[in-house]
């Protein structure tokens, strides 16, 4: 029976009023959750005994069964704490499902059974070291959920360790654990902040949301922790999971309000409706008018706005609203409009979503009608809407009303007034009242309409109308005595006290305008006084007093009668009022001085009530918050600060190492501009987006690209710093770390082998050391840092990643590596990074997957290399795409099917070693051609990626398909058969040698260095006489680009033009130099190890440059 009693006890603790019922339920034998076997046992504790037995058995299946029942008990809210000892024994079970259930149980009851819970701790500590990240993570989850103060130090340690775990998932869990520990023991704050700081630097999208959440909960005031991570968070935002996005956006809103200056002042149309704000801005204008003109939005501010905008298209309503509030609070007034559509879209979502969104719109629409006016009809009420939705829509419609649309709105209101939902109808009448006061043009119409409503059958409607009319008349009392008369006539029929009282008050207030009627009404009231409601009685007394003062002849006796009645009323309020009035108005000795002022007291002109929205003052809360919804400050609400008058130092956001803001800002502009053309998909690649664009955009922006590189990867910075101290040291250490000492060896060998080269190489190397802020170091560390960074991004893909890799290497003395580097080395690097616990996302699984993915991401291709074959030279976009297309199949030979091919000079989608070919097929027959596909190929080994068979090509229709052909760096034609359903045609694609290249970008230094290695038989050259027009840079570049798909290498000398490319299949370098000599002679030099292609290219170039 012991167990039974504990059971009940804890129930009382927990259940409150429900406990009695629950206990009753539990003791009933037919408890539903009891399995078939339990029917035998009649009491609860026996049932638990049974569970205990099952838990102690040897069979996992029995234990599992027992655990399932226990969890079901917990889910139903029943107490299962007494089973704790039996359950905790199974914590080390091998069965993963059982283990999970035990974890679930522990999390629920550990707090109540602290001593016993400690038994399980060691298991978790062991599990924290498990090689499986899933187990590590769940161990940390459970450990941190055990709310037992004694284990705080253990938790702290575990969190710290997990924060530097190589799995981002574990790191995410640690971010959650921070909050749990903080709520358990706030004294740990300082240590936890350290961990948060560390995790904030994490570049995994998985971690970002959770750590910001922890930040918000533990140390929301430590804004300084955000500075360095601000840009990274902005850039990562699109890739973070939805929930994280909400949290980050909310935090960034707050952050931005403390860091940037207001973008609103310049707009002039500041807060349309709020007067005070208007004056304020005026004042400011005069004060610092100069400043205003020169307002420039901080590029970081702009970055935030730009990066959040796409999220308006999120399917998650919380994300959309959080972006909307960000724009509302941060964007210049003229840009806020972009959120309107998305908010209106949310109105089609669930009822609860509508509720919150409408509330936010209500607040917004008061300040800025214009925003939602075009969508007015979306706020029309349907009879099926829930009551609170209806009133919110009404609220918004009222706010949106203006001279132009008022007639439409009033017509709509007419429908609502007739609604069966009387509460709603009453609300509509109030809304009409508000429209009438706000828009003077329609006041009369509204009044007339409301008067008509007075004859409505429904009491609430009539009452509400009277009240509203009263308020309206107060605003313009001079006219409308006929309305007052009308109301007096209706008085007998109106039963609602509030309405009666209102009419009486009106009579009293304007008794001089209706001198005939008022005394009559008072007469009637005197008759029915005793049976009236209190509120009516009070107004009757008021009316009597006012009439007594203005028209004492007629009403003296009536007044005295009423005052007498009031004197003995049951309600003390009325008795008090009566006594007071009597003293005030009826002159006698005692009344003294006050009596003289009776008229001024009672008939003082009263200000008209202001009819305004209940959402008027809601804007003191940040939109989208809980506080805004409930209109009180919720616990934990963080105020949105005002804009600072002067922006704090913006450089705090600069990430260490180089990069002044100025340089960064233009690069931003570029990203913005190039977005369309690039159509790069930031969703996946936001992290490296900037770099990508740089690479393809221009090869000359070396500096800025390196800086942007830095900005997005702080992780590197440390390493860089340390390594830049001495290039040699770093060289060594890094080569060690890369486990590729062979590489550095070969490097050295080369330099010794070629003494003449040494001179040229060395200075450049030095240059780069000193000038470019340790490019050498960067380059060497890049291989490892890169791996880590790309890993931790988790949103990174092999593509963009290899792109950056290549780019970085081009920058300095990367060249020697190129030969050594191979896929083998890449794998080596991976190995290395596996050991690098600090910042690595171990996704050996995802990596290959990504590379499968990448070729297909059409939009990202431009400007990006595809191959994973490592090379130091970065492939760039084509400088020029010739329009020229070649005949593949003439329509005569093709029986009406004609085909032409051209080289789009794009990296091939299917395989990086292939050259992409576009074929446009046209059907010139009068019947559809079916099943167009590629048949046999010759040579049979020809590696070719065919297009998907075309089901049907209609007459006169044409279609363009793309092929990938691996020409294997030879100009040998690719022969294959183009088949239709009936026929087969042999065709061949003959590539010009120039089409077998992919353009590459590199620096001049690299070029020279590479060239130095390709001398002798790798060099072919010729002197030609240039055509007259081909003497300047532009025409030469164009001619070369027409002939061959090469990239332009920037050149310091005016007379030397350099071009570089790689062969598609083998990736061998092709370097072209055109050196102008006197008398329009020119020396063309081609360096490539492909000794066949060199002369062929030379021949083509000669022809083009000489003759053109």
């Amino acid at each position, binding site marked *: 029976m012991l167990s039974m009693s504990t059971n009940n006890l804890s129930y009382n603790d*927990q*259940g*409150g009023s429900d406990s009695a019922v629950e206990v009753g339920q539990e003791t009933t034998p037919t408890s539903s959750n009891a399995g078939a076997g339990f029917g035998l046992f009649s009491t609860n504790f026996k049932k638990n005994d049974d569970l205990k037995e099952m838990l102690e058995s040897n069979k996992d299946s029995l234990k599992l069964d027992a655990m399932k029942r226990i*969890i*079901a008990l917990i*889910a*139903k809210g029943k107490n299962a704490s007494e089973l704790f000892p039996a359950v905790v024994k199974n914590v080390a079970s091998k069965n*993963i499902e059982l283990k*999970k259930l035990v974890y*679930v149980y522990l*999390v629920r009851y550990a*707090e109540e059974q602290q001593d016993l819970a400690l038994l399980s701790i060691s298991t978790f500590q062991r599990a924290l070291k498990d090689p*499986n990240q899933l187990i590590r993570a769940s161990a940390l989850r459970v450990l*941190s959920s055990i709310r037992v103060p004694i284990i705080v130090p253990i938790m702290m340690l575990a969190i710290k360790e997990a924060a530097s775990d190589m799995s981002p998932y574990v790191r*995410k*869990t640690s971010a959650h654990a921070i909050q749990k520990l903080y*709520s358990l023991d706030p004294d740990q704050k300082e240590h936890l902040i350290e961990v948060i700081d560390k995790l904030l630097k994490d570049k995994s999208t998985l971690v970002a949301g959770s750590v910001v*959440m922890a930040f918000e*909960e533990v140390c929301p005031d430590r804004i300084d922790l955000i500075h360095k991570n601000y840009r990274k968070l902005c850039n990562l935002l*699109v890739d973070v*999971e*939805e929930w994280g996005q*909400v949290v980050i956006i909310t935090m960034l809103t707050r952050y931005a309000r403390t860091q940037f200056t207001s973008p609103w002042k310049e707009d002039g149309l500041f807060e349309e409706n709020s007067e005070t704000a208007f004056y304020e801005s005026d004042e400011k204008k005069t004060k610092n008018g100069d400043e205003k003109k020169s307002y420039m939005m901080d590029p970081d501010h702009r970055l935030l706005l730009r990066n959040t905008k796409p999220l308006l298209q*999120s*399917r998650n*309503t*919380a994300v959309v*609203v*959080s972006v909307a509030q960000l724009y509302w609070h941060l964007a210049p007034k003229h840009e806020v409009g972009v959120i309107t*559509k998305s908010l209106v*879209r949310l109105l089609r979502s669930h*009822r*609860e*979503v509508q*509720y*919150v969104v409408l509330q936010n719109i209500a607040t917004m629409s008061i300040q800025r009608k214009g925003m939602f006016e075009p969508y007015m*009809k979306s706020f029309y009420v349907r009879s*099926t809407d*829930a009551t*609170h939705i209806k009133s919110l829509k009404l609220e918004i419609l009222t706010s949106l009303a203006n001279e132009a649309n008022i007639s439409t709105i009033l017509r*709509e209101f007419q429908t609502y007034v007739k609604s*069966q939902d009387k509460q709603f109808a009453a609300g509509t009448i109030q809304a009409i009242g508000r429209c009438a006061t706000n828009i003077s043009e329609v006041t009369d119409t509204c009044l007339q309409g409301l008067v008509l409503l007075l004859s409505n*059958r429904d009491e609430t409607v009539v009452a509400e109308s009277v009240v509203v009319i009263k308020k309206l008349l107060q605003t313009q009392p001079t006219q409308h005595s006929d309305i007052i008369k009308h109301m007096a006539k209706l008085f007998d029929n109106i039963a609602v006290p509030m309405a009666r009282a209102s009419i009486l008050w009106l009579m009293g207030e304007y008794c001089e305008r209706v001198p005939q009627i008022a005394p009559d009404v008072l007469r009637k009231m005197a008759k029915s006084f005793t049976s009236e409601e209190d509120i009516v009685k009070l107004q009757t007394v008021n009316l009597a007093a006012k009439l007594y003062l203005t028209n004492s002849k007629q009403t003296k006796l009536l007044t005295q009668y009423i005052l007498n009645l009031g004197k003995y009323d049951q309600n003390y309020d009325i008795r008090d009022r009566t006594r007071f009035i009597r003293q005030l108005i009826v002159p006698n000795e005692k009344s003294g001085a006050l009596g003289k002022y009776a008229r001024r007291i009672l008939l003082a002109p009263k200000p008209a009530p202001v009819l305004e929205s209940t959402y008027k003052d809601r804007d003191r809360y940040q939109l989208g918050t*809980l506080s805004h919804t*409930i209109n009180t400050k919720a616990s*934990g609400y*963080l105020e949105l600060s005002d804009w600072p008058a002067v922006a704090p130092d913006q450089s705090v956001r600069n990430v260490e190492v180089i990069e002044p803001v100025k340089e960064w800002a233009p690069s931003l502009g570029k990203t913005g501009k190039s*977005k*369309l053309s690039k*159509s790069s*998909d930031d*969703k*996946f690649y936001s992290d490296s987006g900037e770099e990508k664009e740089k690479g393809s955009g221009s090869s000359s922006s070396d500096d800025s690209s390196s800086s942007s590189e830095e900005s997005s990867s702080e992780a590197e910075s440390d390493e860089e710093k340390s390594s830049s101290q001495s290039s040699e040291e770093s060289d060594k250490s890094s080569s060690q770390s890369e486990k590729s000492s062979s590489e550095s060896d070969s490097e050295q060998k080369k330099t010794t082998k070629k003494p003449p080269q040494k001179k040229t190489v060395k200075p450049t190397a030095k240059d780069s050391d000193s000038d470019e802020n340790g490019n050498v170091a960067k380059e060497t560390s890049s291989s490892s840092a890169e791996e880590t960074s790309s890993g931790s991004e*988790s949103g990174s*893909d092999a593509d963009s990643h290899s792109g950056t890799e290549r780019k970085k290497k081009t920058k300095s003395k990367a060249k020697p590596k190129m030969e050594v580097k191979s896929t083998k080395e890449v794998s080596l690097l991976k190995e290395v990074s596996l050991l690098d616990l600090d910042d690595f996302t171990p996704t050996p*699984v*995802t990596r290959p997957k990504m590379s499968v*993915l990448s070729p*297909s991401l059409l939009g990202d291709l431009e400007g990006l290399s595809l191959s994973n074959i490592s090379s130091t030279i970065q492939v760039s976009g084509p400088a020029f795409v010739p329009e020229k297309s070649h005949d593949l199949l003439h329509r005569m030979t093709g029986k009406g099917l004609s085909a032409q091919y051209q080289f789009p000079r794009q990296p091939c*989608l299917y395989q990086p070693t292939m050259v992409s070919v576009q074929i446009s097929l046209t059907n010139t027959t009068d019947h559809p051609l079916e099943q167009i596909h590629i048949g046999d190929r010759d040579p049979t080994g020809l590696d070719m990626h065919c297009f998907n068979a075309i089901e049907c090509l209609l007459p006169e229709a044409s279609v363009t398909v793309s092929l990938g052909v691996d020409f294997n760096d030879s100009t040998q034609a690719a022969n294959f058969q183009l088949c239709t359903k009936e026929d087969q045609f042999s065709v061949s694609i003959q590539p010009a040698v120039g089409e077998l290249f992919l353009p590459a970008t590199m620096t001049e230094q690299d070029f020279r260095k590479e060239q130095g290695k390709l001398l002798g038989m790798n060099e072919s050259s010729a002197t030609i006489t240039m055509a007259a027009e081909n003497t300047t840079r532009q025409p030469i570049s164009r001619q070369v680009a027409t002939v061959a798909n090469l990239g332009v290498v920037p050149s310091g000398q005016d007379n030397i033009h350099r071009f570089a490319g790689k062969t598609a299949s083998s990736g061998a370098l092709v370097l072209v130099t055109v050196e102008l000599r006197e008398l329009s002679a020119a020396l063309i030099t081609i360096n490539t190890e492909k000794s066949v292609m060199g002369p062929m290219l030379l021949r083509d170039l000669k022809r083009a440059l000489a003759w053109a």
Partner: protein
Amino acid sequence: MINSLFLINPSGEIFLEKHWKSVVSRSVCDYFLEAKEKALEPEDVPPVIHTPHHYLISIYRDKLFFLSVIQTEVPPLFVIEFLHRVAEMIQDYFGECSETVVKDHMVMVYELLEEMLDNGFPLATESNVLKEMIRPPTILRSVVNTLTGTSNVGDTFPTGQLSTIPWRRAGVRYTNNEAYFDVVEEIDAILDQSGTTVFAEIQGVVEACVKLSGMPDLTLSFMNPRLLDDVSFHPCVRYKLWESERVLSFIPPDGNFTLMTYHVNAQNLVAIPVYVKQSISFFECGSDGRLDVTVGPKQTMGKTVEGVMVTVHLPKTILSINLTATQGSYTYDNGTKLLVWDIGKLNPQKLPNLRGSLSLQAGAPKPEENPSLNIDLNIQQLAISGLKVNRLDMFGEKYKPFKGVKYITKAGKFQVRT
């Protein structure tokens, strides 16, 4: 963030509770139950309730209340959205979301909830990820499980969680590779007595059922993307490509999902597929009234209108009705005063008509307003906005998928005022 979750049935019984932080006594629900008592309809319960120490945010869905307890400031939509995800997850796992289903799968639901939140913050809400951790029940598996004692809990780590595409699991294999897209458009409209359109708009949704092996990369393009005014996407859709080229490029999740929702440009006039001729009148003297409703096709683009249904909330003062329908059948619930006329297919030659008399409670005044009619309908093989899918291309995989697109037009909130 989210502290606890209670599932409550319409009669006020709490049948599941889950706590992610310290246990909150279920007595906190009393505030909610009180509000529920006050509300006339379950829909009228305010979604956010402020109690002395907690904030209660609830949704009402599938005849269940999902009530969450909050202790500190959090965007209410965050919670609401999450609660809807819970409901969707239950629906996804067990086919429907109802009290019985939850009670039958209590443990699994509990485990799922455990995985979905950690310390009140969403951990895994993608169905693809969850399904790898906790496999949904199938008949076959439950048989196998009982025989072999294996479990539904995945022991491998969900790969999706760590990749850049958390919505898709790795290693998907199908023998038949197929991708189906349903373009479903709903007409939201309010028509007034005379049949003129007060307000009408079209919103659409592209539902996808993609069962493709490997890692397909799909590109869906429309013939007339300009029609689309405002769109929202599944996270898999590359927004930048949509911006620049107006194509949907995405690596799809496995299985069923909503690819996008859209709103059709407001400038385009909305074709209203049916007209409704109605007269509902109550006689001033005597407690009597007449109802006469005829539905006919209007702008149907040559398609047949099917599944037509008229729903009327009659005034509370109605005592009984006596109607005859020339087509279909009607049902009337005297308790809720709900009249449902199920017409079915609309035949242009012979227009369906429902007429008859209504009798009011004795002495009750003539109802102020006539009830409005809610229309339901669907038209197969037609997207009323004229939106057309141009083509679907697949990259990244070698096989040839089977592709299909279906168009349906439905009535959304289609209301005729009388």
